[in-house]
């Protein structure tokens, strides 16, 4: 029996409709927003098309994109991680402090482990202790940034630095494409790989309907914990990009990545209540936010109102994405 041989017209229409309504329309919205911000940059920012500018846009978007993809996995499972930016901070100070004594690769492995461990703690608090994700991860965010300050107090004389190869490599190009752009591609590929795992299927299931998933035999608690571990691991990757981008670590950087990561996934069409969306849209959402920042730089507003305008632009993008995708009826 091969049912796909004779799809009826009705079936085709059904499929096309569901393709658009379930999932693809929000991504289309994000792509449209990307086009708008791109054109605005081309019109307004004079040096936009220079190689240096393009390289630095990609260099700056990597930490955001990596954290946002991690956040997407957590949100898909109906969770949220308000500590994810500080996990990146902690992982970056751990990594950079260990480069000297251990060497680059072992230091990165420990950094990765610290990110995953932070995620594990968040996951246990949410799924086993059953704290509200917002409260639990907001609390742990102070623990992670407190630990980061302890590991690398600000103003430390002779603060540890990343090897120059890493820093230069991050800003170089291969085949005319900035290395940071290759990394962005790598992040997208990692998502495609992740999407083929049984784990991620279960994340979508739990986010879609936790009770039904449980009744079907999905290990809900284990799945929820794993989303936070995966999220923490992505945060650690983001921390490597932050280190490569600036050459050193700052125990106060990274905190604002949390909110931007949530903004990116909302613009990218991931449902905040879980179960629908994906990291493809999130990466586009991250690009939109980065281009908005670049636009803001080009407009050279007085520094004292810059943050205000930045905030308004993000709200504007969120509202636009929300309005467009809520047009599809329902919510």
């Amino acid at each position, binding site marked *: *029996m091969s049912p796909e041989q004779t799809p009826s017209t009705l079936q085709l229409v059904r499929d096309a409709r569901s393709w658009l309504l379930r999932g693809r329309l929000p991504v289309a919205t994000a792509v449209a927003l990307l086009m708008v911000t791109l054109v605005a940059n081309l019109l307004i920012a004079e040096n936009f098309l220079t190689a240096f500018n393009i390289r630095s846009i990609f260099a700056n978007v990597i930490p955001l994109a990596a954290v946002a993809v991690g956040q997407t996995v957590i949100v898909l499972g109906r969770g949220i991680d308000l500590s994810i930016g500080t996990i990146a901070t902690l992982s970056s100070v751990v990594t950079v402090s260990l480069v000297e004594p251990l060497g680059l690769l072992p230091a990165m492995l420990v950094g990765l482990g610290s990110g995953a461990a932070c995620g594990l703690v968040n996951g246990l608090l949410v799924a086993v202790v059953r704290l509200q994700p917002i409260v639990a991860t907001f609390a742990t965010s102070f623990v992670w940034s407190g630990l980061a300050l302890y590991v690398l107090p600000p103003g430390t004389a002779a603060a540890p630095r990343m090897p120059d190869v890493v820093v230069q490599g991050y800003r170089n190009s291969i085949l005319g494409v900035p290395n940071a752009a290759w990394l962005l591609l790598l992040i997208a590929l990692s998502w495609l790989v992740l999407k083929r795992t049984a*784990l991620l299927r279960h994340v979508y299931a739990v986010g879609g309907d936790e009770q039904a998933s449980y009744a*079907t035999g999905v290990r809900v608690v284990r799945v929820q914990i794993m989303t936070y571990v995966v999220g923490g691991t992505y945060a650690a990757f983001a921390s490597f990009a932050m280190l490569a981008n600036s050459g050193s670590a700052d125990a106060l950087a990274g905190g604002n990545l949390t909110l931007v990561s949530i903004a990116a996934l909302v613009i990218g069409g991931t449902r905040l209540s879980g179960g629908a969306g994906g990291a493809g849209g999130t990466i586009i959402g991250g690009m939109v936010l980065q281009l908005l920042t670049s636009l803001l730089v080009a407009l050279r507003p007085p520094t004292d109102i810059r943050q205000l305008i930045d905030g308004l632009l993000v709200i504007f993008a969120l509202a636009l994405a929300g309005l467009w995708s809520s047009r599809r009826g329902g919510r």
Partner: protein
Amino acid sequence: MAFLAMRGVDKRFGGVIALRDASLHAERGEVHGLLGANGSGKSTLNKILTGVVAPDRVDITIDGRPAAISGPHDAHGHGVAAVYQELSLIPDLSVTANLVLASEDARLGFLRRRADRERAAEVLGRFAAAFPGGNLPLDVPIGNLSPGEQQVVEIAKAVARRPNILVLDEATASLYSAQVEVVFEVVRELKAAGTLVIFPSHRLGEIFELCDRATVLRNGELAGEVTLADTSESELVELMVGSLARPAGRGHQVATQERAARLEVSGLATDRLRDIDLSVRAGEVVGLGGLAGQGQSELLNALFGSTRVRQGTMEVDGRPELPRHPKRAVTAGLALVPGDRTREGLLPVRPILENLTVPSLRRRSRFGVLSHEREREAARSAAEQLQIKYGSLDDGVMTLSGGNQQKVVVGKWLLTEPSVVLLDDPTKGIDVRAKQELYELITALTTDGVAVLLNSSDDDELLGLSHRILVFFEGRIVAELTGDGLTAERLVAAALQVASA
């Protein structure tokens, strides 16, 4: 020794006993019916088998070996698969993903999508005739299918696990007759292959068509085990109801006959209700009976303006009134005591005082300003009238016992002096004493000339309190019981759509 044996099953929910020393014995290659009236515990019994409800005591053996089942995952491990009344499908996932959920074919954690899709096509193929044109919607998100198609997928999902024991809990409720035939055909195939199928259903016709034997529960206890070939419909109903004589209700009181109708409804329809005509006189209690979830609750919500009404008219005390919003309903003189009191009936974090006075604030405010004295006075007199046991009116409402909480819900409406009171399963989960006090309260309401519509999942309560009972089936009123017709036998027979018991 039976293939499946459940013995000594006890389960309490708070103060309510759902099952008491219940049991079930069934063999391989058999379709075994599970029968019982509302609240008989059959749903709880099969949820214990499938691991969704944790029993207080149970002794399960499968194939002669003791089986410890403490969650759905364990149940799957023992070869038990279930189709629930509430679907267990994930709307955003495709049909294929739903069919193989939690039993995906994976290598090193990576899905083997082609293998999953083939398996899904194979199992859903057995149900092909249930889909238009026989095309299987494997890649369509479940949420895009019709309710009947979703139900078929739900059944296929259970079958895909190749269970030894398959529980089909009211599985045919949302199916068209053609789809039912397809499902029955598959059930017969499974039976022939040696599967035990447990089939709890309210549809006696289906039980007789499909089952070999049946277990009947009554009030949480085993009422009997029957071979269907030797049993008549009325014998089954008698087993479900019991032969105990029950005190006559109020059907014999005819004093209300001459009084004016306070509520008149005609031709009312919503998404789930059709052709509802009814009239309630001053001082009359009209019961809404039938199986659970046949539209009784929906009717009360529609009258109160919290469910959208498609068509129909309604009059309160002769004034045309079809509330679009609960606030309008309150102004028109209606009051609703909802079934889920913590979610809809109470402001859980606020004090008793505020909970009592909120709906009637406007009656006592002057230019929008409230007098503390008057609030306190009104609340105190309501609390006294209702015999609410409280420490202080300023205590949080959740500090009260369940029964007293429910009295607060009723009491806050008394302060609005309603013409019509709608009670939606008001005694669910409260103790016997609080029940008795609520019954007295209902009597007091009728003495004051209030018209009462009462939905209850407790048939005895319905029979004891109602002057008349309207029996619901799939969104319509199918029978009206009055006078000598107000008996448990008539009620169950009407609810099950059996000719007569």
